[in-house]
Protein backbone atom coordinates (compact mmCIF):
# COMPACT_ATOMS: atom_id res chain seq x y z
CA UNK A 1 0.00 0.00 0.00
CA UNK A 2 1.45 3.24 -1.03
CA UNK A 3 1.83 5.76 1.78
CA UNK A 4 -0.73 8.57 1.83
CA UNK A 5 1.15 11.65 0.93
CA UNK A 6 0.43 15.15 2.03
CA UNK A 7 -0.51 15.98 -1.51
CA UNK A 8 -3.17 13.20 -1.64
CA UNK A 9 -4.61 14.32 1.62
CA UNK A 10 -4.62 17.87 0.44
CA UNK A 11 -6.38 16.93 -2.81
CA UNK A 12 -8.99 14.89 -1.00
CA UNK A 13 -9.76 17.66 1.41
CA UNK A 14 -10.06 20.13 -1.46
CA UNK A 15 -12.37 17.77 -3.41
CA UNK A 16 -14.68 16.84 -0.49
CA UNK A 17 -16.23 20.26 0.29
CA UNK A 18 -17.34 20.83 -3.31
CA UNK A 19 -19.63 17.76 -3.35
CA UNK A 20 -21.17 18.48 0.05
CA UNK A 21 -21.47 22.22 -0.65
CA UNK A 22 -23.27 21.69 -3.95
CA UNK A 23 -25.90 19.33 -2.58
CA UNK A 24 -26.30 21.46 0.48
CA UNK A 25 -26.78 24.52 -1.67
CA UNK A 26 -29.55 22.86 -3.68
CA UNK A 27 -31.31 21.72 -0.55
CA UNK A 28 -30.88 25.14 0.96
CA UNK A 29 -32.42 26.79 -2.12
CA UNK A 30 -35.33 24.37 -2.19
CA UNK A 31 -35.93 24.96 1.49
CA UNK A 32 -35.91 28.69 0.97
CA UNK A 33 -38.40 28.43 -1.89
CA UNK A 34 -40.68 26.22 0.20
CA UNK A 35 -40.42 28.63 3.11
CA UNK A 36 -41.28 31.60 0.92
CA UNK A 37 -44.30 29.73 -0.51
CA UNK A 38 -45.55 28.80 2.94
CA UNK A 39 -44.99 32.34 4.20
CA UNK A 40 -46.79 33.90 1.25
CA UNK A 41 -49.70 31.43 1.26
CA UNK A 42 -51.70 33.06 4.07
CA UNK A 43 -51.32 36.44 2.39
CA UNK A 44 -52.55 35.04 -0.92
CA UNK A 45 -55.50 33.39 0.83
CA UNK A 46 -56.32 36.68 2.55
CA UNK A 47 -56.17 38.53 -0.78
CA UNK A 48 -58.52 36.01 -2.34
CA UNK A 49 -61.11 35.87 0.45
CA UNK A 50 -60.95 39.47 1.62
CA UNK A 51 -60.32 41.34 -1.61
CA UNK A 52 -60.95 39.32 -4.76
CA UNK A 53 -64.15 37.49 -3.84
CA UNK A 54 -66.03 40.45 -2.34
CA UNK A 55 -64.99 42.66 -5.28
CA UNK A 56 -66.10 39.98 -7.74
CA UNK A 57 -69.44 39.75 -6.01
CA UNK A 58 -70.01 43.50 -6.32
CA UNK A 59 -68.85 43.46 -9.94
CA UNK A 60 -71.18 40.57 -10.75
CA UNK A 61 -74.17 42.29 -9.15
CA UNK A 62 -73.56 45.30 -11.34
CA UNK A 63 -73.52 43.40 -14.62
CA UNK A 64 -76.56 43.27 -16.94
CA UNK A 65 -78.98 40.37 -16.86
CA UNK A 66 -78.80 37.87 -19.67
CA UNK A 67 -81.37 39.62 -21.87
CA UNK A 68 -82.42 43.27 -21.88
CA UNK A 69 -86.02 43.91 -20.83
CA UNK A 70 -86.90 45.61 -24.11
CA UNK A 71 -85.54 44.74 -27.52
CA UNK A 72 -84.52 47.61 -29.69
CA UNK A 73 -83.13 47.76 -33.24
CA UNK A 74 -79.38 47.72 -33.06
CA UNK A 75 -78.51 50.55 -35.47
CA UNK A 76 -75.50 52.60 -34.37
CA UNK A 77 -77.31 55.97 -34.38
CA UNK A 78 -80.23 54.57 -32.42
CA UNK A 79 -77.87 52.93 -29.98
CA UNK A 80 -76.08 56.15 -29.09
CA UNK A 81 -79.24 58.28 -28.76
CA UNK A 82 -81.07 55.41 -27.10
CA UNK A 83 -78.29 54.98 -24.57
CA UNK A 84 -78.41 58.69 -23.70
CA UNK A 85 -82.17 58.52 -23.19
CA UNK A 86 -81.80 55.42 -21.06
CA UNK A 87 -79.23 57.22 -18.93
CA UNK A 88 -81.50 60.23 -18.56
CA UNK A 89 -84.41 57.98 -17.62
CA UNK A 90 -82.22 56.23 -15.07
CA UNK A 91 -81.13 59.55 -13.57
CA UNK A 92 -84.75 60.71 -13.34
CA UNK A 93 -85.75 57.48 -11.60
CA UNK A 94 -83.01 58.08 -9.02
CA UNK A 95 -84.33 61.64 -8.50
CA UNK A 96 -87.86 60.31 -8.10
CA UNK A 97 -86.61 57.85 -5.48
CA UNK A 98 -84.90 60.70 -3.58
CA UNK A 99 -88.02 62.87 -3.47
CA UNK A 100 -90.16 59.91 -2.41
CA UNK A 101 -87.80 59.28 0.48
CA UNK A 102 -87.77 62.94 1.42
CA UNK A 103 -91.55 63.14 1.49
CA UNK A 104 -91.71 60.03 3.63
CA UNK A 105 -89.26 61.61 6.08
CA UNK A 106 -91.46 64.71 6.24
CA UNK A 107 -94.21 62.62 7.83
CA UNK A 108 -91.97 61.56 10.70
CA UNK A 109 -91.43 63.35 13.98
CA UNK A 110 -87.65 63.10 13.94
CA UNK A 111 -85.13 65.49 12.44
CA UNK A 112 -83.93 64.06 9.14
CA UNK A 113 -81.12 64.67 6.70
CA UNK A 114 -81.36 64.90 2.91
CA UNK A 115 -77.99 64.48 1.21
CA UNK A 116 -78.03 65.59 -2.41
CA UNK A 117 -74.71 64.66 -3.98
CA UNK A 118 -75.79 65.95 -7.40
CA UNK A 119 -76.35 69.52 -6.19
CA UNK A 120 -73.78 69.18 -3.36
CA UNK A 121 -76.20 70.17 -0.62
CA UNK A 122 -77.01 68.48 2.69
CA UNK A 123 -80.26 69.70 4.22
CA UNK A 124 -81.49 69.19 7.77
CA UNK A 125 -85.27 68.90 7.67
CA UNK A 126 -87.90 68.91 10.38
CA UNK A 127 -91.32 67.82 9.15
CA UNK A 128 -90.39 68.70 5.60
CA UNK A 129 -89.15 72.19 6.50
CA UNK A 130 -85.49 72.69 5.64
CA UNK A 131 -83.93 74.28 8.71
CA UNK A 132 -80.31 74.22 7.65
CA UNK A 133 -78.74 73.93 4.21
CA UNK A 134 -75.11 72.86 4.24
CA UNK A 135 -72.86 73.16 1.25
CA UNK A 136 -70.93 69.98 0.56
CA UNK A 137 -67.36 70.89 -0.27
CA UNK A 138 -65.98 67.47 -1.17
CA UNK A 139 -67.54 64.14 -2.09
CA UNK A 140 -66.02 60.69 -2.21
CA UNK A 141 -68.19 57.77 -3.24
CA UNK A 142 -67.21 54.13 -3.03
CA UNK A 143 -66.38 52.53 -6.37
CA UNK A 144 -68.98 49.86 -5.60
CA UNK A 145 -71.78 52.39 -5.91
CA UNK A 146 -71.26 52.96 -9.64
CA UNK A 147 -71.87 49.26 -10.19
CA UNK A 148 -75.13 49.29 -8.27
CA UNK A 149 -76.72 52.69 -8.69
CA UNK A 150 -78.53 51.81 -11.93
CA UNK A 151 -80.06 48.64 -10.56
CA UNK A 152 -83.77 48.56 -9.81
CA UNK A 153 -83.32 47.14 -6.33
CA UNK A 154 -80.88 49.91 -5.42
CA UNK A 155 -83.35 52.54 -6.56
CA UNK A 156 -86.09 50.80 -4.63
CA UNK A 157 -83.91 51.00 -1.56
CA UNK A 158 -83.18 54.70 -2.08
CA UNK A 159 -86.89 55.50 -2.48
CA UNK A 160 -87.32 54.73 1.22
CA UNK A 161 -85.39 56.64 3.87
CA UNK A 162 -82.18 55.03 5.11
CA UNK A 163 -82.35 54.49 8.85
CA UNK A 164 -79.27 54.99 10.98
CA UNK A 165 -78.40 51.74 12.77
CA UNK A 166 -75.31 52.91 14.55
CA UNK A 167 -72.93 55.85 14.55
CA UNK A 168 -69.48 56.86 15.66
CA UNK A 169 -68.00 60.32 16.09
CA UNK A 170 -65.10 62.31 17.45
CA UNK A 171 -67.42 64.65 19.41
CA UNK A 172 -70.01 63.82 22.07
CA UNK A 173 -73.64 63.78 21.02
CA UNK A 174 -74.60 65.82 24.07
CA UNK A 175 -71.76 67.69 25.76
CA UNK A 176 -73.07 67.13 29.29
CA UNK A 177 -71.33 68.81 32.22
CA UNK A 178 -72.05 67.22 35.57
CA UNK A 179 -72.39 69.68 38.44
CA UNK A 180 -73.05 68.86 42.07
CA UNK A 181 -75.52 71.20 43.74
CA UNK A 182 -73.67 73.82 45.82
CA UNK A 183 -74.04 73.68 49.58
CA UNK A 184 -74.41 77.43 50.06
CA UNK A 185 -74.56 80.73 48.20
CA UNK A 186 -70.78 81.27 48.33
CA UNK A 187 -70.14 77.99 46.58
CA UNK A 188 -72.94 78.83 44.15
CA UNK A 189 -71.26 82.12 43.26
CA UNK A 190 -67.98 80.32 42.59
CA UNK A 191 -69.80 77.88 40.33
CA UNK A 192 -71.56 80.67 38.48
CA UNK A 193 -68.23 82.42 37.89
CA UNK A 194 -66.78 79.39 36.07
CA UNK A 195 -66.13 80.18 32.40
CA UNK A 196 -68.32 78.51 29.81
CA UNK A 197 -66.19 75.77 28.22
CA UNK A 198 -65.45 76.10 24.54
CA UNK A 199 -67.17 73.60 22.29
CA UNK A 200 -64.88 73.82 19.29
CA UNK A 201 -63.71 70.33 18.49
CA UNK A 202 -62.80 68.81 15.17
CA UNK A 203 -65.77 66.92 13.80
CA UNK A 204 -65.73 63.55 12.03
CA UNK A 205 -68.60 61.12 12.24
CA UNK A 206 -69.94 58.06 10.43
CA UNK A 207 -73.52 56.88 10.18
CA UNK A 208 -74.02 53.18 9.46
CA UNK A 209 -77.07 51.88 7.62
CA UNK A 210 -78.33 48.46 6.65
CA UNK A 211 -76.87 46.78 3.58
CA UNK A 212 -73.25 47.74 4.26
CA UNK A 213 -73.73 51.38 3.43
CA UNK A 214 -72.21 54.15 5.51
CA UNK A 215 -72.10 57.91 5.32
CA UNK A 216 -69.07 59.71 6.72
CA UNK A 217 -69.29 63.43 7.32
CA UNK A 218 -66.10 65.28 8.03
CA UNK A 219 -65.21 68.89 8.46
CA UNK A 220 -63.64 70.61 5.52
CA UNK A 221 -61.28 72.73 7.63
CA UNK A 222 -57.86 71.33 8.48
CA UNK A 223 -58.02 69.79 11.97
CA UNK A 224 -55.78 70.81 14.84
CA UNK A 225 -52.99 68.47 15.95
CA UNK A 226 -55.22 67.04 18.69
CA UNK A 227 -58.04 66.74 16.17
CA UNK A 228 -55.78 64.92 13.72
CA UNK A 229 -54.86 62.38 16.39
CA UNK A 230 -58.51 61.93 17.27
CA UNK A 231 -59.33 61.49 13.58
CA UNK A 232 -56.54 58.94 13.17
CA UNK A 233 -57.92 56.96 16.14
CA UNK A 234 -61.39 57.23 14.64
CA UNK A 235 -60.18 55.86 11.31
CA UNK A 236 -58.26 53.10 13.03
CA UNK A 237 -61.37 52.08 14.95
CA UNK A 238 -63.35 52.02 11.71
CA UNK A 239 -60.78 49.90 9.89
CA UNK A 240 -60.55 47.58 12.86
CA UNK A 241 -64.32 47.18 12.91
CA UNK A 242 -64.33 46.33 9.18
CA UNK A 243 -61.47 43.86 9.62
CA UNK A 244 -63.24 42.14 12.51
CA UNK A 245 -66.45 41.89 10.49
CA UNK A 246 -64.57 40.39 7.54
CA UNK A 247 -62.76 37.81 9.66
CA UNK A 248 -66.03 36.86 11.39
CA UNK A 249 -67.64 36.32 7.99
CA UNK A 250 -64.78 34.07 6.88
CA UNK A 251 -64.95 32.07 10.10
CA UNK A 252 -68.65 31.48 9.36
CA UNK A 253 -67.78 30.41 5.77
CA UNK A 254 -69.28 33.49 4.20
CA UNK A 255 -67.83 35.93 1.70
CA UNK A 256 -67.24 39.25 3.47
CA UNK A 257 -69.49 42.06 2.30
CA UNK A 258 -67.90 45.18 0.91
CA UNK A 259 -68.75 48.31 2.90
CA UNK A 260 -69.95 51.00 0.52
CA UNK A 261 -68.75 54.27 1.85
CA UNK A 262 -69.90 57.74 0.96
CA UNK A 263 -67.82 60.54 2.43
CA UNK A 264 -68.72 64.22 2.34
CA UNK A 265 -66.92 67.25 3.70
CA UNK A 266 -68.85 70.25 5.07
CA UNK A 267 -67.84 73.15 7.31
CA UNK A 268 -67.10 72.37 10.94
CA UNK A 269 -70.20 74.24 12.17
CA UNK A 270 -72.41 72.38 9.73
CA UNK A 271 -70.92 69.00 10.64
CA UNK A 272 -71.42 69.67 14.35
CA UNK A 273 -75.00 70.87 13.82
CA UNK A 274 -75.87 67.84 11.69
CA UNK A 275 -74.44 65.32 14.13
CA UNK A 276 -76.06 66.83 17.20
CA UNK A 277 -79.40 67.34 15.49
CA UNK A 278 -79.84 63.75 14.31
CA UNK A 279 -81.41 61.55 16.92
CA UNK A 280 -81.16 57.78 17.25
CA UNK A 281 -82.60 55.93 14.23
CA UNK A 282 -82.67 59.17 12.24
CA UNK A 283 -83.75 58.96 8.61
CA UNK A 284 -81.56 59.97 5.67
CA UNK A 285 -82.59 60.55 2.05
CA UNK A 286 -79.77 60.14 -0.45
CA UNK A 287 -79.50 61.39 -4.02
CA UNK A 288 -76.60 60.07 -6.08
Amino acid sequence: MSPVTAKDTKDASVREPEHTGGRRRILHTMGTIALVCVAVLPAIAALVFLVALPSARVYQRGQPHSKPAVERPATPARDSAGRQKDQEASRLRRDEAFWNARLELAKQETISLAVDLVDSVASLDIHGVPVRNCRIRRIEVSSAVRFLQNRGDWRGRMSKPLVVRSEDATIPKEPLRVTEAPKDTIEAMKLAARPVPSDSMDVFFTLYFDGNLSLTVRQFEKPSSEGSKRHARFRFKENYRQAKKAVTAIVHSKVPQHQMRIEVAVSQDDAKAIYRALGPKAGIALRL
Partner: protein
Amino acid sequence: MAENTVDRPFTTRASPERKGWARRFVAPIGRALKFLFTPRIHIPRFVPAILASLILLALIVFFAPTLREWTLAVLPGPHHVEAAGSKDVSADITRLKTRIKNLQKQYTTLLPRRPYLIVDTSNNRYTLMSGGKLIRQGVCSTGSYVLLKAGDDRQWVFKTPRGRLFVQNKEESPVWHKPDWAFIEEGLPVPPVGAPERFETGVLGDYALHLGRGYLIHGTLYKRLLGMPVTHGCVRLDDPDLEVIYKNMAVGSAVFIY
Protein backbone atom coordinates in the same frame (compact mmCIF):
# COMPACT_ATOMS: atom_id res chain seq x y z
CA MET B 1 -2.58 55.62 -4.11
CA ALA B 2 -3.40 54.76 -7.77
CA GLU B 3 -2.95 57.57 -10.17
CA ASN B 4 -5.11 58.54 -13.11
CA THR B 5 -3.82 57.22 -16.39
CA VAL B 6 -4.77 57.81 -19.98
CA ASP B 7 -6.75 54.52 -20.05
CA ARG B 8 -8.39 55.03 -16.70
CA PRO B 9 -8.54 58.76 -16.27
CA PHE B 10 -11.15 58.82 -13.51
CA THR B 11 -9.83 56.25 -11.15
CA THR B 12 -9.10 58.67 -8.42
CA ARG B 13 -11.17 61.76 -7.70
CA ALA B 14 -10.69 62.42 -4.06
CA SER B 15 -7.66 64.01 -2.72
CA PRO B 16 -6.06 62.31 0.28
CA GLU B 17 -7.60 64.95 2.61
CA ARG B 18 -11.12 64.33 1.27
CA LYS B 19 -10.75 60.55 1.56
CA GLY B 20 -9.74 60.93 5.18
CA TRP B 21 -12.78 63.16 5.75
CA ALA B 22 -15.11 60.45 4.32
CA ARG B 23 -13.43 57.79 6.43
CA ARG B 24 -13.97 59.92 9.53
CA PHE B 25 -17.77 60.21 9.03
CA VAL B 26 -18.93 57.28 6.93
CA ALA B 27 -16.88 54.53 8.48
CA PRO B 28 -18.33 54.88 12.02
CA ILE B 29 -21.86 54.78 10.58
CA GLY B 30 -21.01 51.64 8.71
CA ARG B 31 -19.57 50.06 11.85
CA ALA B 32 -22.68 50.97 13.85
CA LEU B 33 -25.00 49.45 11.22
CA LYS B 34 -22.90 46.31 11.11
CA PHE B 35 -23.08 46.06 14.90
CA LEU B 36 -26.84 46.54 14.94
CA PHE B 37 -27.71 44.08 12.23
CA THR B 38 -25.24 41.30 12.90
CA PRO B 39 -27.16 38.57 14.68
CA ARG B 40 -25.61 37.32 17.87
CA ILE B 41 -27.90 34.37 18.41
CA HIS B 42 -28.87 31.75 15.92
CA ILE B 43 -32.41 32.35 14.67
CA PRO B 44 -33.94 29.59 12.55
CA ARG B 45 -34.81 30.67 9.05
CA PHE B 46 -38.48 30.04 9.40
CA VAL B 47 -38.94 32.53 12.25
CA PRO B 48 -38.40 35.73 10.23
CA ALA B 49 -40.46 34.18 7.42
CA ILE B 50 -43.38 33.50 9.74
CA LEU B 51 -43.09 36.94 11.28
CA ALA B 52 -43.10 38.57 7.85
CA SER B 53 -46.05 36.42 6.86
CA LEU B 54 -48.04 37.42 9.91
CA ILE B 55 -47.27 41.09 9.41
CA LEU B 56 -48.29 40.87 5.75
CA LEU B 57 -51.49 39.05 6.71
CA ALA B 58 -52.36 41.64 9.33
CA LEU B 59 -51.78 44.46 6.85
CA ILE B 60 -53.97 42.82 4.23
CA VAL B 61 -56.78 42.19 6.74
CA PHE B 62 -56.57 45.77 8.02
CA PHE B 63 -56.41 47.42 4.62
CA ALA B 64 -58.74 45.02 2.80
CA PRO B 65 -61.48 47.68 2.32
CA THR B 66 -58.97 50.02 0.66
CA LEU B 67 -57.65 47.22 -1.55
CA ARG B 68 -61.20 46.36 -2.59
CA GLU B 69 -61.87 49.98 -3.48
CA TRP B 70 -58.78 50.07 -5.66
CA THR B 71 -59.80 46.81 -7.33
CA LEU B 72 -63.31 48.04 -8.04
CA ALA B 73 -61.99 51.37 -9.31
CA VAL B 74 -59.88 49.56 -11.86
CA LEU B 75 -62.61 47.21 -13.09
CA PRO B 76 -64.70 48.46 -16.01
CA GLY B 77 -68.14 49.73 -15.02
CA PRO B 78 -71.37 48.14 -16.21
CA HIS B 79 -71.96 48.77 -19.91
CA HIS B 80 -75.65 49.02 -19.69
CA VAL B 81 -78.20 51.16 -18.00
CA GLU B 82 -81.36 49.36 -17.06
CA ALA B 83 -83.68 49.60 -20.02
CA ALA B 84 -86.92 51.50 -19.71
CA GLY B 85 -90.04 49.60 -18.84
CA SER B 86 -91.73 50.48 -22.10
CA LYS B 87 -90.62 50.79 -25.67
CA ASP B 88 -91.07 54.58 -25.65
CA VAL B 89 -88.33 56.02 -23.47
CA SER B 90 -89.30 59.61 -24.26
CA ALA B 91 -92.75 59.02 -22.77
CA ASP B 92 -91.09 57.57 -19.68
CA ILE B 93 -88.87 60.62 -19.35
CA THR B 94 -91.82 62.99 -19.65
CA ARG B 95 -93.80 61.00 -17.10
CA LEU B 96 -90.86 60.96 -14.69
CA LYS B 97 -90.30 64.70 -15.02
CA THR B 98 -93.97 65.38 -14.29
CA ARG B 99 -93.91 63.05 -11.32
CA ILE B 100 -90.79 64.70 -9.88
CA LYS B 101 -92.32 68.13 -10.30
CA ASN B 102 -95.43 67.00 -8.39
CA LEU B 103 -93.32 65.56 -5.60
CA GLN B 104 -91.35 68.79 -5.28
CA LYS B 105 -94.58 70.77 -5.23
CA GLN B 106 -95.92 68.53 -2.47
CA TYR B 107 -92.75 69.16 -0.56
CA THR B 108 -92.97 72.94 -0.78
CA THR B 109 -96.55 72.86 0.54
CA LEU B 110 -95.14 71.62 3.84
CA LEU B 111 -93.65 75.06 4.54
CA PRO B 112 -95.71 76.85 7.22
CA ARG B 113 -97.89 79.63 5.92
CA ARG B 114 -97.26 81.76 9.00
CA PRO B 115 -93.88 83.11 10.11
CA TYR B 116 -91.82 80.46 11.85
CA LEU B 117 -88.69 80.45 13.96
CA ILE B 118 -85.65 78.22 13.52
CA VAL B 119 -83.28 77.85 16.48
CA ASP B 120 -79.81 76.37 16.04
CA THR B 121 -78.69 75.06 19.44
CA SER B 122 -75.23 74.01 18.22
CA ASN B 123 -74.22 77.51 17.21
CA ASN B 124 -76.76 79.46 19.29
CA ARG B 125 -78.35 81.31 16.44
CA TYR B 126 -81.94 81.92 15.42
CA THR B 127 -83.62 82.63 12.08
CA LEU B 128 -87.10 84.08 11.64
CA MET B 129 -88.65 83.06 8.33
CA SER B 130 -91.91 83.73 6.57
CA GLY B 131 -92.99 82.03 3.34
CA GLY B 132 -89.46 80.81 2.76
CA LYS B 133 -88.05 84.33 3.05
CA LEU B 134 -85.72 85.57 5.77
CA ILE B 135 -87.14 88.19 8.12
CA ARG B 136 -84.46 88.37 10.77
CA GLN B 137 -81.57 86.36 12.18
CA GLY B 138 -79.21 86.76 15.08
CA VAL B 139 -77.71 85.22 18.19
CA CYS B 140 -79.52 83.60 21.05
CA SER B 141 -78.67 81.42 24.04
CA THR B 142 -79.87 77.87 24.47
CA GLY B 143 -79.46 75.02 26.96
CA SER B 144 -76.14 74.64 28.77
CA TYR B 145 -76.18 70.81 28.91
CA VAL B 146 -75.43 71.01 32.61
CA LEU B 147 -76.53 67.98 34.61
CA LEU B 148 -77.34 69.34 38.06
CA LYS B 149 -77.28 66.71 40.77
CA ALA B 150 -78.99 67.46 44.03
CA GLY B 151 -78.01 65.41 47.04
CA ASP B 152 -81.39 63.70 47.30
CA ASP B 153 -81.19 61.69 44.06
CA ARG B 154 -82.88 64.45 42.09
CA GLN B 155 -81.21 65.70 38.96
CA TRP B 156 -81.97 67.99 36.07
CA VAL B 157 -80.48 68.24 32.59
CA PHE B 158 -80.64 71.73 31.16
CA LYS B 159 -81.05 71.28 27.43
CA THR B 160 -83.37 72.83 24.88
CA PRO B 161 -85.81 70.31 23.38
CA ARG B 162 -85.41 69.55 19.69
CA GLY B 163 -87.96 69.15 16.93
CA ARG B 164 -91.08 71.06 16.03
CA LEU B 165 -92.83 72.97 18.80
CA PHE B 166 -95.69 75.43 18.68
CA VAL B 167 -96.26 78.72 20.46
CA GLN B 168 -98.83 77.88 23.14
CA ASN B 169 -99.17 81.31 24.67
CA LYS B 170 -97.77 84.82 24.44
CA GLU B 171 -97.16 87.09 27.41
CA GLU B 172 -95.97 90.63 28.02
CA SER B 173 -93.85 91.53 31.04
CA PRO B 174 -93.65 87.86 32.07
CA VAL B 175 -93.11 86.81 35.64
CA TRP B 176 -90.80 83.92 36.29
CA HIS B 177 -92.29 81.07 38.34
CA LYS B 178 -89.09 79.68 39.79
CA PRO B 179 -88.85 75.89 39.91
CA ASP B 180 -86.92 73.93 42.57
CA TRP B 181 -83.66 73.77 40.65
CA ALA B 182 -83.47 77.59 40.57
CA PHE B 183 -83.02 77.55 44.36
CA ILE B 184 -80.86 74.42 44.50
CA GLU B 185 -78.30 75.74 42.03
CA GLU B 186 -77.98 78.94 44.07
CA GLY B 187 -77.43 77.05 47.29
CA LEU B 188 -80.70 78.35 48.73
CA PRO B 189 -83.36 76.38 50.59
CA VAL B 190 -86.35 75.44 48.42
CA PRO B 191 -89.47 77.40 49.51
CA PRO B 192 -92.94 75.84 49.43
CA VAL B 193 -95.06 76.08 46.26
CA GLY B 194 -96.85 79.43 46.05
CA ALA B 195 -94.39 81.20 48.34
CA PRO B 196 -93.59 84.81 47.29
CA GLU B 197 -89.92 83.87 46.70
CA ARG B 198 -91.11 81.63 43.87
CA PHE B 199 -92.03 84.63 41.70
CA GLU B 200 -89.48 86.98 40.15
CA THR B 201 -90.22 89.91 37.83
CA GLY B 202 -87.98 91.64 35.33
CA VAL B 203 -85.63 88.73 34.60
CA LEU B 204 -87.42 87.40 31.52
CA GLY B 205 -87.43 90.61 29.52
CA ASP B 206 -90.43 92.39 28.03
CA TYR B 207 -92.02 89.42 26.27
CA ALA B 208 -92.26 85.66 26.51
CA LEU B 209 -93.56 82.96 24.15
CA HIS B 210 -94.53 79.70 25.84
CA LEU B 211 -93.57 76.51 24.02
CA GLY B 212 -95.02 74.05 26.52
CA ARG B 213 -93.48 71.86 29.24
CA GLY B 214 -92.06 74.96 30.94
CA TYR B 215 -89.90 76.09 28.00
CA LEU B 216 -90.04 79.72 26.95
CA ILE B 217 -88.57 82.11 24.45
CA HIS B 218 -87.81 85.18 26.50
CA GLY B 219 -85.42 88.08 27.09
CA THR B 220 -82.47 88.26 29.42
CA LEU B 221 -80.49 90.54 31.73
CA TYR B 222 -77.24 88.73 30.82
CA LYS B 223 -76.77 90.14 27.35
CA ARG B 224 -73.02 89.49 27.33
CA LEU B 225 -73.76 85.76 27.49
CA LEU B 226 -75.88 85.76 24.34
CA GLY B 227 -74.44 83.38 21.75
CA MET B 228 -73.33 80.93 24.44
CA PRO B 229 -75.04 77.80 25.75
CA VAL B 230 -75.92 79.06 29.23
CA THR B 231 -79.66 78.65 29.76
CA HIS B 232 -81.69 76.04 31.60
CA GLY B 233 -83.47 75.01 28.42
CA CYS B 234 -85.24 78.18 27.38
CA VAL B 235 -84.24 80.29 24.39
CA ARG B 236 -82.94 83.69 25.41
CA LEU B 237 -82.92 86.61 23.01
CA ASP B 238 -81.82 90.19 23.00
CA ASP B 239 -84.60 92.78 23.45
CA PRO B 240 -84.86 94.03 19.83
CA ASP B 241 -84.84 90.46 18.44
CA LEU B 242 -87.43 89.36 20.98
CA GLU B 243 -89.72 92.22 20.08
CA VAL B 244 -89.64 91.39 16.35
CA ILE B 245 -90.28 87.70 17.02
CA TYR B 246 -93.08 88.44 19.47
CA LYS B 247 -94.81 90.70 16.98
CA ASN B 248 -94.42 88.36 14.00
CA MET B 249 -95.37 85.10 15.63
CA ALA B 250 -98.84 84.19 16.80
CA VAL B 251 -100.19 81.46 19.04
CA GLY B 252 -99.88 78.28 16.98
CA SER B 253 -96.82 79.43 15.03
CA ALA B 254 -94.17 76.78 14.61
CA VAL B 255 -90.72 76.83 16.21
CA PHE B 256 -88.15 74.42 14.78
CA ILE B 257 -85.28 73.66 17.10
CA TYR B 258 -82.30 71.53 16.15
